[in-house]
C-alpha cells in the first residue's frame, strides 16, 4: 500500500467522524487532507488557529491568490463565502472555550489514557507546540490521524507515552491505516480494522492493550 493510498484511507475514515454543521480544526500535514472527503452539504466549517473560520477547498491559483489569507501553516488558502476572520485572542477563545467540535491532529505517540505526544523529541526535534496544546485541551472531540507505526516499524500507540506530552487524557479517537480505536475510560477499544489486516496484526503493531469491540467492523478498501 503506497503512502498516498494509506493516507487517503485514514483521512477518508476520519471525515466520516465529523458531524454536520460542526466546526473543525485540521492540523498541518495529513489532517489537512480530511477536508477533501467532506461534502459541501454537511455544512462543516474549517477553523484555522491563525484567525479564520471558513477555509475553502478550492486550490489557490494566481487568479484567486490573496497573500492576506493564509492558514496555520502559513500557506495561502481559498475561502468559503461565509468566511470570517479574527485575531489570535478570539481564535483561541474559540478553541479553548470549547467552540471547536472536532480537531484532527497527527501524533508521535498516543496512549491508553488518551495522552498525546506530538510536539517535541527532546534533543532531536523541537518544533514547538504551536496551537496543538490548546486545540487538544479545548476541542470537544480530539481525533488522531496517523500511520499506525513509526518509520522504524515501532508502535506509536503505547500503554504510556514516552515523549513529553501535548495534553493529558484528551484524545477520543485514533484512526490509522490499520485500525479505528476509541479511547475509553477502560483503555483502548478496537472498533474497526482495515479490510486488509487482521486483529492479530493490529495487536502486534500496537504497544498497548486493546479491547476488541463485540461488533468489530471493517473499513477501507483493498488497494
Amino acid at each position, binding site marked *: 500500500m503506497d503512502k498516498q493510498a494509506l493516507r487517503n484511507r485514514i483521512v477518508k475514515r476520519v471525515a466520516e467522524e465529523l458531524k454536520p454543521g460542526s466546526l473543525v480544526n485540521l492540523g498541518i500535514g495529513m489532517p489537512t487532507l480530511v477536508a477533501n472527503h467532506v461534502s459541501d452539504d454537511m455544512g462543516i466549517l474549517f477553523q484555522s488557529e491563525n484567525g479564520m473560520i471558513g477555509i475553502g477547498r478550492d486550490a489557490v491559483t494566481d487568479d484567486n491568490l490573496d497573500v492576506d489569507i493564509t492558514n496555520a501553516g502559513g500557506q495561502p488558502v481559498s475561502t468559503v463565502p461565509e468566511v470570517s476572520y479574527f*485575531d489570535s*485572542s478570539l481564535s483561541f477563545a474559540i478553541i479553548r472555550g470549547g467552540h471547536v467540535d472536532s480537531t484532527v491532529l497527527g501524533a508521535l505517540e498516543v496512549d491508553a489514557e488518551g495522552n498525546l505526544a506530538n510536539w517535541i523529541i527532546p534533543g532531536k526535534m523541537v518544533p514547538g507546540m*504551536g496551537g496543538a496544546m490548546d486545540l487538544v485541551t479545548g476541542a470537544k472531540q480530539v481525533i488522531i490521524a496517523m500511520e499506525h507505526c513509526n518509520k522504524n516499524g515501532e508502535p506509536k500507540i503505547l500503554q504510556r507515552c514516552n515523549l513529553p506530552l501535548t495534553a493529558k487524557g484528551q484524545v477520543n479517537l485514533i484512526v490509522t491505516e490499520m485500525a479505528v480505536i476509541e479511547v475509553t475510560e477502560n483503555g483502548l477499544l478496537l472498533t474497526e480494522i482495515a479490510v486488509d489486516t487482521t486483529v492479530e496484526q493490529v495487536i502486534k503493531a500496537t504497544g498497548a492493550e486493546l479491547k476488541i469491540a463485540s461488533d468489530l467492523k471493517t473499513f477501507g478498501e483493498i488497494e
Partner: protein
Amino acid sequence: MQLKPIISPEQAVEKIKPNDRVMIGGFMATGSPLNVINHLVDLGTGELNIICTDTGYADKGIGQLISSKQAKSVKASHIGLNPETGRQMNTGELEVELIPQGTLAERIRCGGAGMGGFLTKTGLGTMVEEGKQKVTVEGEEYLLELPLTADVALVKASIVDKAGNCIFNKTTKNFNPLMATAAQLVIVEAEQVVEVGDVEADRFTLPGTFVDFIVAV
C-alpha cells in the same frame, strides 16, 4: 486632533535598544512588519528579547532576525519551520521559551489589559506546567499563567489613519492588535495611511490610542 507621528523604517528601528523586549506581530510572516524587520536586520542592534508566535522562515520575516543573530532570547509557540532557530537553541546561542499559542496570545492580552494572570487547562500535565503555580477552583485544577508585556511592539496594519486607528486585513490580524496593547512603545507599519475620516470609524478594530508611531512604507 490627536495625530500620530509618521516616521521612516530607519527612524523606527533606532528606537529599539539592545536588551529590549520586542513583540513582533505576524504568523508565519503573514501580517509581519517586514520593512521594519529588514531595517532592524540592517541596523544590527542585537541582544533583542523577541516575543512572537513563530520564527517564520529563515529568510523571511522574524526569521531574518534570528539568522542575523539579532536575538538573545525568543518566546514563541512554534519554531519548526525555521531550522536556524533550533540550531542556535541547541548551541546555546539563543534562549528559547516555547509557549502554547493560545496561552501566548492570552498572556499578551492579559499584559495589555492589566490583569495579574489567568487560569488555563492548556499545558496541564505537560512540560509547560514546570515552575508554574497551580490554582484549584471548584475542584478543578488550572495552571496560573502570567501576563506578558514588552518595551516595544512592532506590528503591521493594512490601513492606518493618521490618528493611528488600525485595520488588519483578513488573517494578517493574528497577534498584531494584541501586541499593540501590551508594549510601552507601539510602532505600526502601515500598508496604507489614510486621512482621518476617510474610512468609516467602525472599520477600525484597534483604536489609535495604542499607537505611538506610524511607519509608512
